[in-house]
């Protein structure tokens, strides 16, 4: 089943809230994981692993470095769905 951009954004926001306590309202496409949301590399990896399970995608370690914003992650997930 393919997820839409909105569904991925909402799902990611849920994962981010679970990991960091950040309100889902603050999670928007243009937000930077590090600069805006203050998510450290370990929390980021936890979110990535949970996103892989939730959306059925594989996000390699090397790719994680390129996911600067929430929008980057949404684009990667939607374009790499099985």
């Amino acid at each position: 089943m393919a997820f839409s951009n909105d569904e991925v954004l909402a799902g990611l926001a849920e994962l981010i809230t679970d990991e960091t306590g950040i309100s889902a309202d603050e999670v928007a496409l243009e937000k930077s994981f590090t600069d805006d949301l203050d998510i450290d590399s370990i929390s980021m990896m936890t979110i990535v692993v949970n996103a892989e399970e939730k959306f059925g995608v594989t996000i390699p370690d090397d790719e994680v470095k390129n996911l600067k914003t929430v929008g980057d992650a949404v684009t990667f997930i939607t374009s790499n769905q099985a």
Partner: protein
Amino acid sequence: MTRTLIQPTGPAHTRIYAYGAARGEVAVPNDDLIGPIDSSDEWIRQRTGIVTRVRALEQTTAIDLATDAAAEAIARSGVDPQQIDAVIVATISNPKQTPSVSAIVADRIGSNPAAAFDLNAACAGFAYGVTQADALIRAGAAHYVVVVGAEKLSDVVDPADRSISFLLGDGAGAVVIGPSDTPGIGPTVWGSDGSKADAVGMNYTLNEFRYGTAPWPTLRQEGPTVFRWAVWEMVKVARQALEAAGVEAADLAAFVPHQANMRIIDEFAKQLKLPDTVVIGRDIETTGNTSAASIPLATHRLLQEHPELSGGLALQIGFGAGLVFGAQVVVLP
């Protein structure tokens, strides 16, 4: 006609008799390390759970730490040092490659002429050593074995490194292993993945240092990569070790993972779905990450703080540079 050789056999079971511990003499708080890495006490606590780490004085060696830990384990075990016929030291940080740490330790603890060898399996070294000791005894190659994890990692840290140096401490943990009437050491699930050799390890060779093309080699890691592997891949290994031993998480008295980072320990415990009754080793908070020494040091502390754990089952799992890993369930002495 060729004569038939005698091949030895050993006892059916082994167990850990006792633990010993030695920590670096100096407690180093985060504030002492934050300057060169442009950081703060809060930053280190939040990312690692470490408040202080122990480091040894300049003149103290991994051999000294290993000797002290082994001597305590032997004294607590009640085994005569002369009966110990093998000494295994897991270490990656002794600055002299040869002679081995283990041969000197064997002599110092009164076990000369025990067989002695060092083992390089980084943070999985103690679990590897326990596997070796169990196998040697059950094969009839040794009767009583001392296994030590010993590191002076402060010799291989770079004060300006933000990847791993500020986590590291110095110490040694030891056990005496011998024959048992009942099973005391479960099957080991162990292995390696050399395709990820660059994820954690030394940044330069000694030759590069010798010829002036690199500074003194120090430890580095790809933190997020190691974190992902250490939790989600190692959880599978931990579950396999439980299954191989024929026990479930609810049967455990204690969980003692390698003390790499409190965030790894917390996520690991969450993924394993450990019941609240399982006591978790969290020695890293005041000892830091001591690589091969971390599991026996953490267990030694647990047994001091929770003597009721004696006789219970502990799941221990080591993982680190190689990458290598090893896990087994043991009965606590």
